């Protein structure tokens, strides 16, 4: 904290501090004025008639940030200033500047911070050397009072060159966070970016800027905003995500425009039969894939809207792809498509059903989409675990599966029990009768 000579020199050479006057040529003139006025708020409250131009003459000296001492539970502890309405016009504040300065000049950083917290008159102006300013800042941070930390930071922002302030903030995490928050609140994006760069916190900066896309409503502007984000220094993982986010929105805009037109022209049956409920813009990628499987199934890989293209571009896992596709095709009752999803051919030309997820889950999904028993039982049959197969078959009333399974297990007892559960004379019933009377079967019980 205690710094040697070189820093002091730094300060005198590069500090923006020009005692008691402001550099009117400053680019950020208006900003200065605002901040200055804020810091001088007590004064302007007294002299509310002040014209804007008068503000330039106001010095830093002795103008407190807070106007009043707090009232309330601590009144008994602090020698409170009394009623705020009186306090606002307290005679001390109208004293000539020189006198006023004497009055406040002896306070240590600790006392000053304490006074700030208590809302009493204080002055930051007397902290002139870099070392003093930093002591003041550290004291404010020690007090953990965000309001006071911010007030001190505003003073340092005005009175130190940004290079020096940034350098000092590197080792002061809490003060830094407050400074970032402050710059965000007052919208000093450019300075903020400089700050992050000098701190070597480019990833934080990138994320922070990316966050702003949430506030962009127009999709084309949002797309352009995201495109602009691509050049930011994200971590490798996040960079991929942002790239995907951009690509997705870009595609959604194209698909949306196209489908809207097709739908309104009445050219495609699918849109007539199942009118779109909402726009696909800003939906997650899985939702977009579902949409694609619903409206654009069977399109060639080359089109932006085809499921295969989306799957490849966004590196969607086999599981996710299958589940999404299954959901969409089942919703449309396209059982043939569902079947094709699981069918694989080996080199001899035999077909086999395979799935990266257990078939019991597939059954659940199909059932939720009101698949008929004929479809369901095919998949129940594919469940490997016998107990699970039977319980699913019972749940969804796939009689054939149950009967065949018991037959294969040579479990006569269970088959007899099940006969009692089905309707007498029904086809299931007859099937069980037939099996039970088959003398070729060797029952285990």
């Amino acid at each position, binding site marked *: 904290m205690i710094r040697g000579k070189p820093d002091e020199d730094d300060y005198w050479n590069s500090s923006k501090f020009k005692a008691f006057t402001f550099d009117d040529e400053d680019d950020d003139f208006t900003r200065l004025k605002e901040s200055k006025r804020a810091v001088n708020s007590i004064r302007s409250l007294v002299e509310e008639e002040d014209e804007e131009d008068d503000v330039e003459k106001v010095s830093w000296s002795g103008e407190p940030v807070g106007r009043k001492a707090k009232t309330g539970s601590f009144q008994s502890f602090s020698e409170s200033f009394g*009623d705020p309405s009186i306090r606002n016009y307290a005679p001390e504040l109208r004293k000539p500047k020189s006198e006023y300065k004497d009055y406040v000049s002896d306070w240590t950083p600790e006392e000053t911070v304490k006074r700030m917290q208590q809302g009493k008159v204080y002055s930051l102006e007397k902290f002139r050397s870099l070392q003093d300013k930093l002591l003041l800042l550290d004291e404010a941070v020690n007090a*953990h009072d*965000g*309001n006071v930390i911010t007030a001190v930071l505003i003073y340092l922002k005005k009175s130190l060159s940004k290079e020096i302030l940034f350098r000092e903030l590197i080792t002061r995490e809490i003060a830094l966070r407050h400074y970032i928050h402050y710059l965000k609140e007052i919208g000093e994006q450019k300075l903020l970016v400089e700050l992050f760069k000098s701190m070597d916190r480019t990833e934080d900066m990138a994320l922070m800027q990316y966050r702003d896309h949430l506030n962009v409503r127009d999709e084309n502007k949002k797309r352009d905003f995201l495109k602009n984000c691509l050049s930011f220094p994200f971590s490798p993982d996040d960079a991929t995500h942002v790239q995907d986010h951009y690509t997705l929105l870009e595609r959604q805009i194209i698909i949306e425009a196209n489908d809207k037109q097709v739908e309104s022209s009445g050219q495609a049956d699918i849109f007539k039969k199942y009118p779109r409920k909402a726009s696909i813009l800003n939906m997650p990628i899985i939702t977009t894939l579902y949409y694609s499987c619903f409206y654009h199934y069977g399109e060639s890989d080359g089109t932006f809207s085809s499921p295969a293209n989306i799957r490849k571009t*966004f590196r969607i896992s086999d599981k996710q792809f299958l589940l999404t596709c299954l959901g969409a095709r089942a919703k449309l009752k396209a059982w043939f498509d569902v079947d094709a999803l699981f069918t694989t051919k080996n080199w001899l030309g035999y077909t086999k059903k395979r799935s990266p997820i257990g078939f019991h889950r597939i059954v659940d999904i199909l059932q939720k989409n009101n698949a008929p028993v004929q479809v369901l039982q095919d998949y129940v049959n594919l469940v490997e675990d016998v107990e699970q197969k039977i319980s699913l078959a019972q749940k969804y009333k796939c009689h054939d599966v149950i009967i065949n399974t018991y037959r294969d297990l040579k479990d006569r007892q269970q088959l007899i029990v099940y006969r009692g559960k089905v309707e007498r004379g029904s086809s299931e019933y007859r099937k069980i009768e037939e099996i039970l009377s088959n003398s070729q079967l060797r029952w285990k019980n």
Partner: protein
Amino acid sequence: MSAHLSYGRVNLNILREAARKELREFLDKCAGSKAIVWDEYLTGPFGLIAQYSLLKEHEVEKMFTLKGGRLPAADVKNIIFFVRPRLELMDIIAENISEKNGRPPQMLSPRDFHILFVPRRSMLCEQRLKEQGVLGSFINIDEYILDLIPYDGDLLSMESEGAFRECYLESDQTSLYHTAKGLMTLQALYGTIPQIFGKGECARHVANMMLRMKREFAGSQTQILPVFDSLLLLDRNIDLLTPLATQLTYEGLIDEVYGITNGYAKLPPEKFAAQKKQGEVGKDLPTEPKKMQLNSAEELYAEIRDKNFNAIGAALSKKAKIISAAFEERHNAKTVGEIKQFVSQLPHMQAARSSLANHTSIAELIKDITTSEAFFDNLTVEQEFMTGVDTDKVNTYIEDCIAQKDPLIKILRLVCMQSVCNNGLKQKILDYYKREILQTYGYEHMLTLNNLEKTGLLKPQTSTRNNYPTIRKTLKLWMEDANEQNPNDISYVYSGYAPLSIRLTQVLARPGWRSIEEVLKMLPGPHFEERQQLPAGLHKKRQQGENRTTLVFFLGGVTYAEVAALRFLSQMEDGGTEYIIATTKLINGTSWIKSLMDRPEAP
């Protein structure tokens, strides 16, 4: 309205009265008739302090909700804005009164404007008002320090939703400063607390500030016999696990399912329809949710809220029998005197009956949920994680939930829980979860995932070994045979899991933290003990068998289940310690994760 605050070990009504006094003083400062424009968020916390009647007594004639546009017409002398120090609210205020700027300054000003910042004024806000050119329109800018609000007879809350996010994500420790101030207020009213214990970075900061403030006010020592024997400050981040678990006490479940805000729950109205008017049968079902105040002022609620939900059915039916029996008494009332006595008890009995009806309805609503397959599956996975089963693999249940697009917060709760119970996830597993989440819920959630990583709720495993099993075993965080009906251990509140935070509290009371030094070192932040000098003559002489009173302060939030566990410890016959609980905010896993999410700001 507030009698229940004074029944406890410590009369918290004193604190409420102090807050009311301050409010009255502020209102009286603005002489004449007034209208209050409310930042809607504040009405809840204020409701715990004062009713409209108090405001009315002090010439508050109208109340409005703060919103854009012009102020509604009100024939009053003063307009007072009650607001949190937020920049966006300043813009609305400016919009409200800026038409005033159009009028020549010489014109008679019919109204005086005031701002009351809650809990503190902010220099940034005043700066914003200044920029908007309206700062000068305010006669009075003041602050109302609503630090610790009495929430119930043994419970104080700062109702500060953002405290965890601010402290652990944004490194803004202003809420710790408020905490320290709140504790100073408490000490001014209830005497200096002689012993301070703590665990965690934030706890250390708060203790330091308290000691420092005490030095600064050294001249004005309170001459009050200390009510509290000790204070325990606990950081939420020493126990990230507990809030992630589903609470299984009655009150905890009401909070999990419907949410309790400022002591009120909003419940689906259907179940409560019949009691209202029996005449109109099903004519029009109420569509407004039923708002119910939940605190110990209601006898039955105080009795059952901390029970495990599985014990609620029995408790309610027992109560029903008692009430029926009481009503049956009327047949035995023969003499005029007996009838008179019966009648005098009627209002109380009727209140008890309607309370019973309400809670039976709530319990039914919750039972529908707890008996569902989804609830059971979720709980099973939570318990697997807490007992350390397969925490180092991708969990298929979580995968399935993502595939079904279950609410994102549910997913995040589970993934974070797995991470915490495994002391971080293997990079491959973490990446897998992240990808699935972003693809299913949207890429913008990478901001939220980043926040969770920064607070340590989600993290990649580093080379250090997983020390969660050691912590679990040493602190007995998992009890195999938790007794839900007649509990003998705090683990009943999560049906097996004993909240880490409360175990630490329990061990501190007996046998002391020295016995668990190893575990304490595994948890983040320092642990410490401080003593505060008492003025001569204020040393408490404890009667034999008299319990100690400890204030436990949770920095960053506490769950209702944890509160229940502390109440259980207070009631233990040979416990020796009674607990008063304070926190920045009552939280549950959902509200907590939500506070860490990044969402689009309101347009």
